[in-house]
């Protein structure tokens, strides 16, 4: 216990927790909509794109996240465009764009030989190394994402439940979906700091599916997902620090434990 309290006194742990909690909230709130729209793999696809844009950032010697945010947002719109206009199913569009992203990263790593190590450090993230500036950026952008979710909550609910009906309600569904996609891109870029490009989609998917096991109502699902997400990031950071484990992987394991518990509880309750 003393060790645990001692850990909380470290500045880098405090920074990791602050940024992690806000990023977790963004991921979980978007995750519920994405999972229910069967679009959860967009997080994975965009993370692969981010891998490429981080490579570009390192090559150009700018901060990778500054460059990644706008480029991944553009890629997210491109995925929507392909899925909508080019008669390509959403999963295939994600597959195409993500493969291009990873290829770009590998190409750039090959061109600028010096930064291979840096690029690969982004694969699994390291939130304990987050700087003060990155914390401000993460909190600020997370607040933007959360504001969008709050302001468009009812529209997002309606279009997730039944998109065509939402149109008959006069909701501009295409615009709201684009907004959701852009927010997802932003959240993926932020999530890379916590768990890395390889695992960022877990932050989006796990809390949502955990919530779906037990929640009785849509607002309840959002709240349970938020609790699971924030809980897993806090527990992941603290446990990984205490046991000297990789933080990103620990967060994913905690998420898995939460999911398992929710699954068992949900089944037991519905017996």
């Amino acid at each position, binding site marked *: 216990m003393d060790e645990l309290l001692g850990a909380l006194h470290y500045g880098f742990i405090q920074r990791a927790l602050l940024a992690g909690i806000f990023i977790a909230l963004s991921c979980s709130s978007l995750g519920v909509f994405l999972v229910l729209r069967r679009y959860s793999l967009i997080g994975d696809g965009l993370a692969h794109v981010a891998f490429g844009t981080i490579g570009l950032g390192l090559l150009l010697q700018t901060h990778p996240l500054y460059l990644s945010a706008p480029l991944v947002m553009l890629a997210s719109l491109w995925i929507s465009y392909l899925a909508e206009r080019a008669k390509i199913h959403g999963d295939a569009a994600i597959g195409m764009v993500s493969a291009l992203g990873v290829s770009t990263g590998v190409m750039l790593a090959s061109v600028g030989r010096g930064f291979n190590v840096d690029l690969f450090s982004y694969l699994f993230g390291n939130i304990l190394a987050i700087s003060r500036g990155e914390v401000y950026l993460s909190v600020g952008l997370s607040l933007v994402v959360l504001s969008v979710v709050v302001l468009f909550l*009812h529209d997002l609910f309606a279009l997730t439940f*039944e998109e065509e009906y939402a149109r008959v309600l006069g909701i501009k569904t295409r615009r709201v979906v684009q907004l959701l996609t852009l927010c997802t891109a932003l959240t993926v870029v932020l999530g890379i700091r916590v768990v890395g490009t390889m695992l960022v989609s877990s932050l989006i998917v796990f809390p949502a599916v955990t919530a779906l096991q037990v929640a009785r*109502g849509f607002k309840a699902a959002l709240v349970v997902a938020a609790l699971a997400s924030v809980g897993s990031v806090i527990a992941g950071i603290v446990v990984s620090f205490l046991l000297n484990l990789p933080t990103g992987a620990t967060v994913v394991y905690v998420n898995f434990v939460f999911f398992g518990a929710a699954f068992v509880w949900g089944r037991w309750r519905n017996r």
Partner: protein
Amino acid sequence: MPMKVLEVVDLSVLYQDVEVLSRVSFDVMGGDYLGIVGPNGSGKTTLVRCCLGLVEAVSGQIRLFGTERGQFSEWYRIGYVPQAFEGAQRGFPATVGEVVASGLLSRKRFPKRLDRPDAEKVDEVLEILGIQDLKKKMIERLSGGQRQRVFLARALASDPEVLFLDEPTVALDPTTRERFYETLDGFNHKEGKTIVIITHDSGTIGEYASKLLYLDRSVVFFGDFGQFCRSERMTDYFGEHAQHMICHQHKGSCIVG
């Protein structure tokens, strides 16, 4: 003089280069109860979806309450009960109350918030349809009949002037189906709501609807049930037996055979 709720003029719709609706024209006046009937693949659902802006037409015009559909923005005047797909919302964590409340969004402007009067409205429509006890139930756990009533409640939440229903009774047992039709009849007769319903219950719809649109990619018949039953052209088209099946239950005006 009742106003025109819906005007469809020379409407044609293509699906993958095949004409699924050809030069369809008809009007729906305020207070009408229109039954849209026709064989499978005759374009009934496409027609209603096109009227609501969910399908694009290649030619023709649609006006809702006198406004071109593309410019129409008063969606709260329209209630829609789409075709039910078994399992469409499987695993969706929404309560009946949340689903019905979403029907109020057509009356809201950004930033949309649902407040106490909205909650009261949800209670009111649930009570009208006799499903108050379902309010906190999860939508995925309901039977087909209960779910249809919930979707009707959602459509009614915004106090619409016209209800479009796409085969709402398809999953219902005969007793529940009869009750559903009686409920709609009440909305039409007591509250003056206009009803446009797609149905396969061609033998039942004549009991309730005042007008019939028989569709088979183009309009085979449009008019009052009485006219349909007396039409020799329809006797030639359907044969006496089928014509009688469609109109024999109709109150009053049918004289066949």
